[in-house]
Every structure is written in C-alpha cells, then in structure tokens.
C-alpha cells in the first residue's frame, strides 16, 4: 500500500517536472542556451491563470499561453538575440538577469504584489479499489505524454521540426542550407514558452498558490530532470522528470530524509553529470577544434 501510494505521489510530482523539463530541453537542445528565465515564465503563466481564473479556467489557460509566448518572444528578441555568437558565459549571465528581472517586475506590479495569490479548486479523486489517485495527476501525466509524443512527431516529420534538428546539429551548416536560424530559434522559444505556460497552469492547480519565486525552484529541478534524462532528448526529459518525482516522493515518505530532499536531488544530478554527462538518453557530442 505504501509503495503504491509512493508511486502515485511520484507520478503526481514527476508529471509537473516532466512538463517543465520538456520545454527546457527544447530550448536548450536547439538554442544551445540555458534559459534560466524558463522557471519565471512558468511564474508568469501561473499568475495569469490565477488572475483570469474567476472569469473562466479555459480563458485563463488560453490567456496564460498567449501571455507567456509574448513574454518569451520579447525576452528572446531583446536579451538573447543580441548575444547570438557571443560567449556562452555572457548568455548565461544575461539569462540569470532576465530571471531576476521577471521576478522583481512581477513583484512591483500593483495587481501582483509581494503576497502570494491562490485559488481554491478541487479536481477530486479517482477511486480504484483501495487506491485513490487525483484526477489532476492523471491529466498532468496524460498531457505530458501527449506533449512528448506530439513534440517528437513535430520534430521528426515537419519541415520546421527538421530545420530545428539541423540548427541544433550545426547552426552554420543549417544557415548555408537556407534555414533561417533566427526564425527557428524564435519558434523554439515560442514552443518552450507555451509549454512553460501549460506547466505553470498545472503547477498552480497542484499547489493552488502562486508567488513571485514560484517557478524558480521547479524550474531548476526541471532543468536537473532534463539533464538527468539527457538534455535535448524529448523522451529523456519526460523520464528525467518522473525519476526526480519518484525521488522526491520517496524522500517525502521517509521523515529522516525529508528535509534533505533538495540536497539528494541535486547530489543525484551531480553524480549523473560526472558519470554520464550526456544523461540517460542523450547523444554524445564530440568537441571539434
């Protein structure tokens, strides 16, 4: 019984991580930059749904996708595009700056403020025998799987998707083949931000509360999930998210380990990186001179 409950909890926590990790892995795989602001775009999505929730949940979801995509495009154009071709260190520091900027801007807005905002919404449980599983968990998992399959198909079978692979393999060669690299990277950011919005919505329904640093920790953990699964690999992100979810669930069930949950997750990340830097499902890249 305990084991079944732990598995369900793992799925429930891991589902949201997987959702965020899918967006992370898309952006990292193609734009080759660690978008620290991803977690804060989740926060933007979370606030949008909370603010629009009284009108209608559906309107809220649509609004948060639209708003996050807009923020994603603006961030990409203003902060990241000028640095294309600059050293990765510069891009990374800018991304950290954008992350802080989004957090503090949100806090300075009068209708957001520094106090957390919440919603009260109960999805109810599905009873299977003696086991009860939250409907939200099921929706999250199904959605993540759908997004994973959809993204894989999109990348494999559409022209834009294959252009993405080309850009991620070799940006210079892709450009010579007539691919508009800037456009492809923007598309990537649009997809990434839309996924962040959806993840934000799920996270809000899960936690039922949103604050200005609400996306930061899940964002970093989802990046860890993406790295564990193999960055750039879509199924890897899903797997990594679930692995992290299970770890968190197991730690949560053992009172002695519970306070150390974050440390254990990060230690596993470091171990994976040191032993197999490409993650479980990632491809090895050779560094050319």
């Amino acid at each position, binding site marked *: 019984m305990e084991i079944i409950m732990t598995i369900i909890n793992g799925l429930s926590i891991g589902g949201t991580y997987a959702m965020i990790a899918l967006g992370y892995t898309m952006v990292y795989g193609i734009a080759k930059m*660690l978008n620290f602001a991803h977690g804060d775009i989740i926060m933007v999505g979370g606030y949008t749904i909370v603010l629009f929730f009284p009108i209608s949940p559906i309107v809220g979801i649509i609004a948060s996708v639209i708003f996050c995509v807009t923020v994603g495009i603006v961030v990409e154009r203003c902060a990241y595009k000028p640095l*294309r071709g*600059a050293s990765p260190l510069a891009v990374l520091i800018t991304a950290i700056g954008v992350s802080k900027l989004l957090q503090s801007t949100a806090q*300075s807005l009068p209708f957001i403020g520094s106090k957390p905002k919440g919603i009260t919404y109960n999805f109810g449980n599905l009873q299977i025998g003696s086991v009860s599983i939250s409907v939200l968990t099921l929706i999250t998992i199904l959605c993540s799987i759908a997004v994973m399959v959809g993204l894989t198909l999109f990348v494999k079978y559409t022209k834009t998707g294959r252009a993405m692979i080309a850009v991620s393999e070799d940006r210079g060669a892709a450009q010579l083949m007539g691919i508009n690299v800037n456009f492809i990277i923007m598309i990537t950011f649009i997809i990434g931000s839309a996924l962040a919005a959806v993840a934000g919505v799920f996270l809000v329904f899960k936690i039922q509360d949103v604050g200005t640093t609400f996306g930061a920790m899940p964002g*970093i953990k989802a990046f860890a999930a993406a790295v564990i699964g193999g960055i750039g690999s879509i199924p890897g992100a899903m797997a990594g998210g679930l692995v992290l979810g299970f770890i968190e669930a197991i730690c949560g069930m053992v009172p002695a380990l519970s306070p150390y949950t974050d440390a254990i997750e990060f230690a596993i990340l470091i171990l994976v990186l040191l032993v197999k830097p490409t993650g479980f499902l990632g491809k090895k890249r050779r560094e050319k001179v």
Partner: protein
Amino acid sequence: MKKSLKGFTKHYLNYTVIGILLVVFSILSIVSPTRTMADLLPSIIIAVIAALSLSLVVGFLGELSLGHAGFMSIGAYLGGKVAIALMEAGDFEATNVLVFVIAIAVGALCAAICGFVVGFAALRLRGDYLAIVTLAFGEIVRVIFTNSGKETFGGALGLDNEAQFLGQKRIYILIIIGMVLVLFTLFVIQNLLRSKAGRAITAIRDNEIAAKATGINVTKFKLMVFVISAAFAGIAGVLFSYSKNPIKADIFDYNYSIEILVIVVLGGMGNINGSMISAVLITVLNNRLTDLLKGDAAVYKDIFYALILILIVIYNNAPALKSFREKYNLKNLINKILRKKHDPSEITNDAARWDVVPTKIEMNEVLSTDIVIDKVGRGDDSADILERGGNK
C-alpha cells in the same frame, strides 16, 4: 623619476590606496566606532574578498560559478565553530587575534577542500553544466547546514556565535584584520595572474583545446583556480561569522551567489581593480537604497540590478555592438574629459603586461576581418556563420 612613478602606480597603486584606508579606518574604528561603520565596513570588506575570489573563476578561468556563497557558508560555519570552540577551551575574548587567525586558516582550508571537489567536476564539465553543478553544490551545502544537529551547527536556528560576535565596540579588530586580508587576497591573486600560471589560466579560458595542445596542464590549473578561489571565499565567510549573529545558512543562498556575480560582472570581468571598486559601490548602494526605498518600492532596487546586469553583458558582448563599444566607452569618455588625444608616438609595451595581453583574440575575429562579408546584406547572420565556424 617619471618612469618609476608610472611603474609604481601601475603595480602598487591599489595596495597603497587600501593601505591608506586601512590606517584611516583602523584609527577611526578604535577611536569612535559608529553603527554605520560597524555594519557597512565589514560588509564591504567581505564583498571585496568574495568578488576578488569569484573574479578569479569567472573573469580569468572563464567558468561560471553559481555556488560561491556555498564556499562562504563553509568558511563561516566551520571557521565560526572553531573560533567558538577555541574561545571556550582557552577562555579567550572574541578579539583574540590568534583565535581569529586560526579560524581564518580553518575556514580557508575547509572551503579549499570543497573547492578541490568542485574543481573535479569542472574537469569533466564546462559552461552551463558546470554552472548547474556549482548551483547544486551551493544548495547542498545550504540544506546540510540547515538540517545539521542542534549541537553541531545549530540546524535551522543557525550557529549561535554570540561569543564570537564583535558588535560595534570591538569591530575594529575585524576591520583591521579584514583590510589586511584584502591586501593579502589582492597580493596573491594579482601575483598569481602575473605569473606563468596566470597566463596559462587565461589561455585555458580563451581556448581550452588549444591550451592543452600547447602543453598546458589544464587539470592542474583548473583545480588550482577553484581551490584558491574557494579558499578566499572561505576567508570572507569567516569574516562574516565575526560580524553577524547567528550565522544562518539561508543567507548564503543562490541569490547571494548572484549578488557576488553581479559585482564581478559590473566591475568588468577579468578586471581586479574593477571588481573591488564595484564591490564597494554595490555594497554602499545596497545600503543606501534600502534606506531610500521604503515599503513596496524596495523591489525597484532588484529591477535596477537585473537591468544593469543584462545591459552591461549585452553592451560588452553583443557581436553587433562591437564597433559601437569601441567608439563609446568609459576609457574614451575619460580621455575626452581630460582632453587627451591618443598619441601614436607613445609606444606602450602592452605585450608584457598581464592585464592587456591580447589573449582575447579569438579565431572568429581573425576570420571575420579576413573576409569582410558582414558588411554586405544581412549582416549579423553571415557573421554568425563565420563565428560558429571559427569557434569550433
């Protein structure tokens, strides 16, 4: 005479300035310690040492460390613990210099050991991955100290260092030792960078593979940088433990690491004096802004820092702004104010100076000047190709 003065200012001006400040503030802090002095001066000293040590990793080795506060935390906790234990064992006062020095040695040593471990990660990983590992390291340190037992490190309540805490009246000891340590840090880092090792470190930053090919022992130098940087961060941590009570692990979180990073970036990466000046500037500004911005307005400070960080990085690094920043920069501006024109007859032996060694020339720059395509048609995209090609 003129030449020797120039040589002096070039190499020893920063020491002199800090030396003068050391004397001035030692006297001031002994004669009339004020609240502002007791708060602000230790913060400045800690920020300067932390920024110097981080700039070694970020500015000179070219790797991003997001867990620098973690090393400080180790220094603060272990140094503080040792100081308290010694004080209890020998019935010493907090102002005992010997205890202070031992605490600093222990804090630096423990942080250096952790730096060695993180340095190992740096051997296998670069760039974003290493940044994430250092971030994870900082978080792990924080969690471990927060959950430590009540007897060991005080757990969530923080390490109770009431015996060690100096307060306003005894702060002079921290100010004197702290400023001597700033001199020491500066001496070690500046001399390291002026040595053969320093050139090897910048060579690794600019092109690791090429550096390896020329026979530079990358393993050795990377570990060396991480160990030295961590040791000085540990020293900053020990100083912190003397200025605050209790020592709480939450203070040394990710945001603190970012704050140090902002200082280094603002000072100009790879510019030691710049890092020190911006450490002073940011700390004082932080202090004043907290005064000025009350209530909800406090958040504008964060917006301001974030914007500064983004704009400075874009200004310094954007390929499209290259010609712009060559034309309009601080140096030219100051020259303009001083009405000094560039005198081509003045030959400088730049090549012999560590801070202007042309290590920054990258393959792509050579290529893009050879083939001037980026002026035709869709500029930045074609430049992009060349740079990508060049980088690989």
